[in-house]
Every structure is written in structure tokens, then in C-alpha cells.
């Protein structure tokens, strides 16, 4: 299995939302829905403060509870990878995956009647391209690649920089990392 990961550098992320719009246009996401979003976390008291911006989305977990809990098999892994997709034809819109997702990363409801989500732009990955969000980011703070390849940019960054994932306690083994 190829394990794809996204590594986002909070040191240079400015929370501009370009990734959100790039995803939206690339994937023709319908009005009112977004597959990724920005979180701003500020701590401290004026003037002793830190602010972290994070571009968040589906974590394409190594242990994807949304896939396990999907009653129809609509939620599935793409080829032999950790990329979680939804097969519209099999999705009944039961929302079990929404409850199962620790990241609130699934969208109700695509107008065509299924639960939509980030695909890591697998149609681009297949062509050797980065996901649209990664390749649009003006600060180059987002990176994408395979963790199986120790020479990949994502492996290198995780080896050399302090990092974290969101909600590690769930045991879902997420694959979106944040450099801190």
C-alpha cells in the first residue's frame, strides 16, 4: 500500500484560503460546500501571543473509521493507497461516515445525493501532480508525497522538523501533518 501524506508548515501558512478556493475550482465543488478549510488558533494575552494557521481537510487516515463504518462500501480506499474516496453510486447519504470522522471532514450533501469529501486530488496524483491545494499555495507551505519513499519531500520534512497531527488519540493514524 502506498501511504500518501500531506505536510503543512504552520511557520509559513498565512491562512489565506487559497487552498480552499483552488480545491473548489479544481474539483468543481458545488456552491455552499468546501472540502478544505482554514483554522486559526491564537493563544496568550495581548501582547504575548502566538497564532497558528492550519489548512485542514480529510486526513486520509491509515485506520479510516469512515471506511470501516460505511454500511454500503461507498467509502473505500483508492487503489492500493490510503486515499479515502466515496463512490457516489453506492452512497445512501446515511451519514455514518460523518459520525465516524474525527475531523469533521465530510460534506453534507452533494446536490447529487452523496457525501462528498477531499480526494487528495487522486486524479492529479495519478498524473504525478500535487493536489490542487498544494500546488496553488502562494507561500509553498503545503507539501505532498509518499511516506514509503524516504527521499520524498514529506518524509524528509517529517524527519527534520518538529511536527504534529490532529487528534492522535483517536487511533485513526491521520496522514495530514503540521510542522510546528
Amino acid at each position, binding site marked *: 500500500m502506498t501511504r500518501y501524506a500531506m505536510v503543512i508548515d504552520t511557520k509559513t501558512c498565512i491562512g*489565506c484560503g*487559497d487552498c480552499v*478556493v483552488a480545491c473548489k*475550482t479544481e474539483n468543481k465543488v458545488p456552491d455552499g460546500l468546501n472540502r478544505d478549510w482554514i483554522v486559526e488558533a491564537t493563544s*496568550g494575552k495581548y501582547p504575548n501571543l502566538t497564532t497558528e494557521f492550519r489548512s485542514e481537510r480529510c486526513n486520509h487516515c491509515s485506520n479510516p473509521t469512515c471506511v470501516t463504518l460505511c454500511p454500503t462500501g461507498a467509502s473505500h480506499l483508492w487503489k492500493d493507497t490510503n486515499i479515502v474516496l466515496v463512490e457516489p453510486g453506492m452512497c*445512501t447519504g446515511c451519514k455514518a461516515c460523518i*459520525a465516524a470522522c474525527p475531523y469533521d471532514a465530510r460534506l453534507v450533501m452533494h446536490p447529487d*445525493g452523496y457525501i462528498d469529501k477531499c480526494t487528495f486530488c487522486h486524479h*492529479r496524483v495519478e498524473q504525478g501532480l500535487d493536489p490542487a491545494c498544494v500546488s496553488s499555495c502562494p507561500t509553498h507551505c503545503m507539501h505532498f508525497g509518499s511516506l514509503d519513499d524516504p527521499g520524498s519531500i514529506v518524509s524528509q520534512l517529517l524527519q527534520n522538523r518538529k511536527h504534529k497531527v490532529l487528534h492522535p488519540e483517536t487511533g485513526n493514524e491521520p496522514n495530514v501533518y503540521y510542522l510546528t
Partner: protein
Amino acid sequence: MKRRDFIKVSTLLGTSAAVSPTFLLGGCSSNPLPGTGTVSATPTICDMCFWKCASHVYQEDGELWKITGNDDDLHSGGRLCTRGTGGPGAYLDPDRLKTPLMRVTVDGRQTFQPVSWDEALDYIADKMRAIAAEHGPEKMLMLNHGSGSSHFRHLLRAYGSDSRAEPAFAQCRGPRDVGFRLTVGESASSPERTDMANARCIVLIGSHIGENLHNGQVQTLAEAINRDATLITVDPRFSVPAGKSQHWLPIKPGTDLALLLSWMHVLIEEDLYDHDYVERYTVGFEQLKDHVRSYTPEWVYLETGIRPEVIRETAREMAKAAPATVVHPGRHATWYGDDTQRSRAIAMLNALLGSWNRKGGFYIPERVSLPEYPLPDYPERRYSTADAYPGKWPFASQGVTNGVIDASVGEDAFFKGWLVYGTNLPQTIPGVEQQLEAAANSLDLLVVVETMPSEMTGYADVILPECTYLERYDELRNSGERQPSLALRMPAFEPKYESKPGWWMAKQLGHRLGLDEYFPWEDFSEKLDWQLQQVGSSLEEMQKIGVKNFPRKTPLYFREGTRPRFRTPSRKIELYSRQLADKGFDPMPVYTPPDPVPEGFYRLNYGRMPAHTFGKTTNNPLLFELAPENQLWVNPLVANEWGFRSGDYVRLGSPNGVVSNRIRVRVTERIGPDSVFMAHGFGRKSRRLKLAFGVGADDSTLMSNIKIDPLMGGTGMRANFVTFVREASAGAAS
């Protein structure tokens, strides 16, 4: 953004496991993956802001798909910003102007009526002929912003007028550009010529790179952060770059000039300045040394709130990295009315550090020497723009909007006609609405060329609907850069509705005014092709590549040991300015304390948000979805005192009784208790903007304390105060 409504789903969990995935349970078939249809790409230059990034417009099966950056483009490095990526929204916006409109009176009520292009253009040409005959062509004024204005400037110059003003000068960059010209003989340019990619220390003073998305600036700042350059940010607010900085100096608003003078004091007192550079390139060092002696960090601390040791430490950091230190010139510089002097202080500080035109400081931009298409000379003019306000603002290098607007009011007004292109004056110039109305009632002709039904269109006699940048040719982009570079904007689509390109409107008006010889092309692309052929390219080539970079002919930085001539009277960098002294101004910047905050009021700080280019984009459906309204940043202490929580709606009041639209409170530690902050461009008043109308508040309507820069006429906007206006519904609405 609201991704979905909250739905309780916990009861479903127990029943989820048993169904076979092979059952077909309804739903639908898969949508085709993006990009699997017939895909084509057309080059363009982004028009979502003034940065003009070269891009590709992708279509799939004839429908607009996406816009991405052109990899060869130095402005964008192949990556657009949020707004550039949101460009499809400008084309798809259903509220776009669709037909020419003329003001008519029906049953005693004025309204706009759709008319044919012939009718609209004939009307305008008749009025322009009459103005030229009765008053002279110079009495026809253009107010403009943006790259498409060149067509109309050409038209008016051919007609006999170069009377022109843009808010980009007196409401934005003017003081900075004038301050730098007075000091180093050149402006800081657009794109800014900062060499942040190579800097080891960057100083931002009220410049919110990252909140504004000036693309190349954002990218090179991020590069500098990745290289662990020292970042020093001066801002009363914990701005985005403040959060990335080793040194955040939360300065008292309005005291920046004191800090700049104190930094110069430290550099001189501790002998940290670049002796060779100062001796070789500058005049007036001894006067400056005397001048800044009194600006000790201990005294300046009392004004700025920045501790003396921090002032000293940051000055030393700058000197340690010099000349690879950028003290950033900023961009929107019209703050307190002494802005040209503050900008001069920034230029002077860079000079002491030896960073102007040195690696890691500033570079020398170079353009392509692109021949102009051979056309007859423009007629001689009897009046220039400044003749409309004689004796005022001696260092204004461009028309001053406030001056020309005032000179358009009344029977005996200087100007008799306006052509307004791409600028929304009511939201751009604080407190201008009354004067605009008076001008509109005085003028013989008021034409507005726009893509959107902005507030400005409401003042027009005739509205000409321009197609968006995705549907038209414009002039080639030839901005100064690290490398000379040309970029092409060409239509990816036919103009929607009855909209037309600006070049076509100018040519049609030219024809009606007997100026055909100035418009010898059938299609504007012929002119572009001719120009491109002169520099070894062609329209055909540019239609494929979009951007062409040329080799530099001149050095990127000063050659060490040379003695370049600066474009100042002394041919040197003027630390002491004789020309200012001669006109009765301070030859070196003098700090004046800002007006104190009245009891019960807060400073009104305003700025940018990355999703929008002010009001230009607030109705763009893609960007509206990302950021539909502005929020009012309020410190928790203030929120507690007033009993506000995040998400509550409030209204703001100015000292002279203006009450704002309602705006949502965002309680945050990122602002101090003496100020509030909002992004500019909201609180739209044009009902024809169906998304943006009435959403959020407009800062400029709350500004009553305007500080005019006596040197160049800039509109200082930061000396304004607001308080909260209580209303019963605050908090209840959503």
C-alpha cells in the same frame, strides 16, 4: 464558511455494519473526474488586483474550469493568490453589468434604462464635443484604476486632455512614492522592488503582508522566513506577519515616525550605519545626525510604548544583517497626514543601512524597452491636472482625487466632464459622497466604465459595461522586475451579455470624435502583435506562452565602488532635503504626536483580508463564500466592558454621529484595548450587488477626521475614532 448544518447522527452508528457493498442502494453515478473532458488553456494577466500575475485560464468542454499561475511569471512564481484563484467568480457573477445604461426620468423618478451601444456612445461623443468646444478638452477628466484604463487615457489624450487622478495616489501609495522620490530619486515601484528573497532582516511597519496578498511580496517573505531571516514587525495589531516575527513591536498607533527616527538615532549613536554608503551616496548626514540626537530610545518609548532596549536591539539586528536588510516601504501609506515624511524616514533608514539597491535590500527593476505603436502625436494641452487646484500640494506627482473632485463642483467648476474607469470612488475616498453628489449635479457628462454595478455607477449619466479580463485584450504587461518581462492578456471567452472590451469602447468613441487616426487597428491584437514583433516575439508566440522573460541589460544592484547618479537635485540620496526646505517644509522628518483618543472611543484601524481586494471582489461568488462579511476585531477587555461576545452584531458610531452598518464582533487578543479593526471593502450600498449589498460595515463612512498631507495631498485616514452604538437587536440576528 459553513460546510454543513449540524445533524445528530449518533443513533445511526449501531446499524451500520451489515450491508453488502455490492448492493446498489440508489444514489447516483460517478461524476467524471475533473480534466477528463476536452481541456484547453488561454493565457491572461490576472485583474483581481493590481499585482497582475500572469495566469492560465482552463476550460473543460467549453466551460470555465479554473485559473492557475503561469510558471514562467516572476510576479507570481506560477502560483496565484486566493483572489486570483477565485477569478472565475468575476466572469460568472450574475450581477455583472450586462448592457449600456443611461439615466432617464420616468414619471418624475430617475432610473437607468438599457440602451444600445450606438445610443450610449453617440450621447457621450456629443457631450464630449460640446465640452471641448465650450470649455476646452482639458476640462474632461479621467478618474481611474487598473490596467484597462490605458485605452481611455489614450482616447482622452488624442481628444486633448490628460487631466487624470487615481485614488491609488492620494488614497494609497502616493506618500510612499513621493517620499522615496524626494529621498532616493525613485519610487519603491509596483511590484515593490524589495529583495526579500535575499534579505537576512526584514522590517515591516504597519505593512500586513499575508493579509494583503501582494503575491510576489508574500512569496518572498515566506522564502525569507524559511531561511530564518530576522523578521521585525511594527503593528499595534498582532497581524499575520507579526505572528511570524522574532520581534513584534506592538506600537501605539500613530507613533511610527518616532520609532523610525529613534532607530536612526541608535544606528548613528552606536556607529552601526554604513559609512562607505553614506559617504559615497548621500548628502545631509551631519544635519541628520543633529536632527535625530533628541530622538533617544528613552524618550521615544514614552511615545511609542516600545521599550528602549527593544528599540536598540532591533536597530542592532538591522545593522547586523545590513545591507541585506529591507525596511519595507509598505504600500497603503495614507495614515496621519505626515505620510510623505514618514516614507522619507523609511527611505533614509534604508540609506543608513546601505540597503537601497544592494543585494538583500532593494533591487533595481528593469523593463522591456517596448516601442510604442506609431501614431500621430497627441495635441498640445493648455492645462494640466494640477491647474484645477493651483498652489496646492507642490510635491504631488499625479492628480489628487480630492482636488479634482472639489474642482468639479459648481457652475464655474474647472472640470465639466468625467470618465470614471474601474474605480469605486464612494468607497475609496472617505466622506466623499456629498461632494460626489454635488459634482455629479454640476458636470455636463459623467460616464462610468465598469464590470460591476458599483456604487459609483449610481452617479453616472451613462454606464458602459466592460467585459471582464477573461474576455478581452489589454495592453501588454511590462512592469519592472528582476528580469524584463512581457505578459499577455487575451480573451478566453467571448464577452458575456452585451459587455465589450475597453479598447473597443475607446475606438468607437474615437471614431465618433473624428480621431480615427489614433485607432488604426480593427482589433487591438494587431497593435499588440506589432509591438511584440519589435522585440522579437509575436502575438502568436505569446498566445502560446503568455509570459516572455528577456535577459537583463543592466545590473540588478549597484556595482560596488561605482558612483551612480540619483534622480534628485543633488544627484545623491537626500537625507537633508533642500527642495523641501525651499518650499517651507521640514527638510528632515519631524515627529508629531497623534491626536489622543477621545473618552469612550477607540481607534479605528482598517486593513485587508486575503480573500478580497476591497470592494472590487466582495460580490465575487467564490470569494463571497470564503469571506462573506468583515468582522470587527475587539479586545476581550473591551468586549467584556460592553457585554459583547464573538458573533454578536454591533454598530459603530463616529464622533460626528455617523452610524455604520452592523458588523459582527470577533473577540480576539490579537488587538489591543485601545483600538478596533476591520477589513475594508464591505458594507456595500449598491442594491444591484445581490450578495454583498448591506453585508458588513464600511470603515470609510466612519472617517470624519481626515489629515491631508500638505506635500502631496494624500488623505490620512488613521486618525479616526469610533464607539459602539447599542441597539436592541445586537446579538439576536444572524
